[in-house]
């Protein structure tokens, strides 16, 4: 059980770092947004995994169950998921406008175009 606990944390941190790598190492703006989404999802896992109790059930109180999973991280992560999709929508709207203004969504070409304008 101790090993499994460590394994969940390691897998979550691997996903966190994969998302971070996509954000900093790839130049396409849409792919950066997808990487940001992966980063956010791994944080959800980081919150919810410690709240689980083996042998428990979902936090809906009913007859016959005494052990429930912790409902508080579920509430926080519900809010986080919806805020995440709001961020994605705004980011994509900005990317569409950038494409219409510059003609490209690759980071290198955008930086060159900005330097040339100055």
């Amino acid at each position, binding site marked *: 059980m101790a090993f*499994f606990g460590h394994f969940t944390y390691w897998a979550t941190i691997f996903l966190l770092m994969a*998302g971070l790598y996509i954000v900093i190492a790839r130049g396409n703006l*849409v792919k950066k947004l*997808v990487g940001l989404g992966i980063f956010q999802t791994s944080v959800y896992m980081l919150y919810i995994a410690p709240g689980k109790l083996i042998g428990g059930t979902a936090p809906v109180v009913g007859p016959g169950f005494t052990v429930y999973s912790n409902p508080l991280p579920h509430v926080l992560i519900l809010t986080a998921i919806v805020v995440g999709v*709001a961020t994605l929508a705004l980011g994509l709207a900005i990317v569409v406008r950038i494409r219409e203004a510059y003609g490209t969504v690759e980071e*290198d070409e955008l930086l060159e175009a900005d330097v040339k304008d100055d």
Partner: protein
Amino acid sequence: MIETSAIAALLVLMAAVAVAIARSRNLFGVVVLAGAYSFLMATALAALDAADVAMTEAAVGAGISTVLLLGALHLVGSLEAKPAHNPAVPLVVVIVTGLLVVYGTYGLPAFSDPQAPIHRHVVPRYLEDGPRETGVPNVVTAVLASYRGYDTLGETTVVFTAGVGVIALLRRRRQQDRENRP
């Protein structure tokens, strides 16, 4: 035993999909892989007994996010250029950060420990008194709408603000459009 191995298998699959997303240059494939990643995440959340969160992640992550990304790809173009920089520096940064965070997780509570601090302060009160005080058996809804109602008001305002922001960015004025057409 079955639960822990199912969760472990799902996490390994999610890691493989994340690596595939990092390496693929066809953005349409990346969007489909992101949808698959969200579904795997929703299954892992359901295995962790987070029923509300799994439903929301499946609907929002695999449904709405995929539609928005496809809509944006239609307007933006779906091939990523070859990476121009050496990936060594970001890789080193990411590995060092990862190792530091792994060192930090040794202070976090163990998996499925009923004596962990998160299970002992406010949560027993929510689980025992929540259904009686609010009349609602689903403790997550009771906490979301009643005990932590201000947070949900803030979140609804955030969604509203995102909608207004996208309207402000992507709305077309009829005058400008008539002038811009050749």
